């Protein structure tokens, strides 16, 4: 990279030295084609032999003829020192490069269009910075862009103008900074401000246009990603947990007990069946829901009896139906004191897991694990049912409370 910079700088200033008169006209082209340094050199190499001799003679005069170039050499020395200050990272470069760089630019500064376009108050420094910035930006874009981006965020134009000055501050301290600040004349300051104002607006606009959309887009993308991820994870995690626990307990082929309540057939897996108890005497407790039939003592224990019809079909439960129902057995739920009152026990059969249409999504009836396809009856999710009963929830309550 350093070689290419050197070569570019050398070629650029070699051209400036060779054709001083044409430089004012050609410089923009050179500056534009600075990235294509080799191409421009090639075009110059293709020029006529006279030009070649002219170039060689001019190079020779630069080396030999001292009198006309005394001023140039002095300025080369002075500006080379300044250029060293301005770009401490270029210390590795040979001093001759800097002298070659700064000399022609400082010499032809009033005539150059680039300097007049920027209209800096200090011709020498500004031109030197400008040319170096252009050259460096053309050759080593990544480094230049990173430095500009980091400095341009708070004040883009100021940072761009004083990009090299900041580096000088770091290297030399406030002395150079004071010089840089004090150097411009009052008129030049006004011009500078005017030009700066002119330049600031488009630059700021451009940078706003360049910078603002990207964070907004990123924020939108991030929000979309976040919003998009949340439901996915929730939806992905919830469904298997509905009947997964029950299905894990059950074998591929498992036994179920079918029982009837008011013409409705329900199935309970035998692994979730706590037992069958004959209805004897159910003690009614005051202040309990309608679906709570009462408490039946059984072997020194107390069974909480559920009016299954009232619990499962509260909308169809009427006093007439209540009178017509004759509960005979209590289907005990495994691991609890809850017993579902039923009118009759149908049978216990083996069914395959695939014969059950398992509920996959959480719905309004967590107590219903699925539907047995052949018998077309609901199969109970006993644990969910126990949880609901313990919480005092009825079938309709579960719907209301989700």
């Amino acid at each position, binding site marked *: 990279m350093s070689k290419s910079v050197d070569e570019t700088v050398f070629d650029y200033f070699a051209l400036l030295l060779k054709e001083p008169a044409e430089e004012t006209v050609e410089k923009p082209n050179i500056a534009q084609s600075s990235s294509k340094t080799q191409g421009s050199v090639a075009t110059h190499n293709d020029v006529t032999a006279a030009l070649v001799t002219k170039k060689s003679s001019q190079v020779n005069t630069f080396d030999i003829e001292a009198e006309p170039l005394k001023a140039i050499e002095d300025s080369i020395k002075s500006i080379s020192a300044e250029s060293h200050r301005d770009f401490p990272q270029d210390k590795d470069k040979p001093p001759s490069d800097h002298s070659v760089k700064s000399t022609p630019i400082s010499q032809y500064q009033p005539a150059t269009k680039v300097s007049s376009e920027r209209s800096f108050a200090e011709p020498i420094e500004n031109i030197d910075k400008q040319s170096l910035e252009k050259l460096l930006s053309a050759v080593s874009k990544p480094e230049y862009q990173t430095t500009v981006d980091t400095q341009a965020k708070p004040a883009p134009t100021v940072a761009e103008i004083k990009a090299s000055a900041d580096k000088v501050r770091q290297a030399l301290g406030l002395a150079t900074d004071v010089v840089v600040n004090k150097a411009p004349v009052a008129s030049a300051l006004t011009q500078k401000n005017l030009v700066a104002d002119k330049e600031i607006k488009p630059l700021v606009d451009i940078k706003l246009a360049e910078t603002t959309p990207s964070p907004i887009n990123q924020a939108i993308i991030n929000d979309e990603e976040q919003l998009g991820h949340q439901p996915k994870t929730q939806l992905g995690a919830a469904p298997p947990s509905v009947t997964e626990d029950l299905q894990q307990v059950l074998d591929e082929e498992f036994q179920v007990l079918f029982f009837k309540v008011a013409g409705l057939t329900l199935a309970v897996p035998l692994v979730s069946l706590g037992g069958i108890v004959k209805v004897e005497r159910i*003690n009614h*407790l*005051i*202040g309990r829901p309608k679906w*709570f039939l009462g408490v039946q*003592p059984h072997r020194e*224990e*107390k069974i909480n009896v559920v009016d299954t019809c009232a619990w499962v079909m509260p909308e169809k439960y009427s006093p007439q139906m209540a009178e017509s129902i004759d509960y005979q057995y209590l289907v005990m739920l495994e691991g609890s004191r809850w017993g579902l009152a039923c009118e009759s026990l149908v049978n216990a059969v083996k069914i395959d897991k695939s014969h059950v249409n398992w509920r996959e999504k959480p719905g309004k009836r967590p107590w219903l694990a699925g539907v047995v396809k052949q018998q077309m009856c609901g199969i109970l999710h006993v644990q969910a049912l126990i949880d609901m009963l313990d919480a*005092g929830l009825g079938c309709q309550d579960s719907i209301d409370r989700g």
Partner: protein
Amino acid sequence: MSDSRSVAAVAAGSDDAVLQWVTFKLDNETYGINVMQVQEVLRYTEIAPVPGAPNYVLGIINLRGNVVTVIDTRSRFGLQSADVDDSTRIVIIEAEKQVIGILVDSVAEVVYLRRSEIDNAPNVGTEESAKFIQGVSNRDNELLILVDLDKLLSDDEWAELSDI
């Protein structure tokens, strides 16, 4: 189960105190009230209604010169009313520093229960009457429902009752 219960009783030691409960019948259910709150049990006597009294108040009786308010227990428990018969009794109790009478279907006996023999009632009740039940106990394969007389009426109702 009985073994575990007895073990629990032994472990409880002196905390497992024996309490006496007066049992009475109401709509074929057996209820028990703390004997320490029972003053006496009366046969049914004429109850004089009180105009403007709350619906849970049946009326007042004259008990040896003292006016005692009688509560309609069936109504309070959310049960249907029943006709008075020979087994109907008025149980005079003291609760919340007031002496009142409760009308019951019949009075059965006094039973002894350890604290460890009392279980909590199923906590599924949402109605106000659910809080009357202090606990349940299984005795001779029959359920005894223990009533907390202090919670038979609310504070406002107790205050209202004192003004009658």
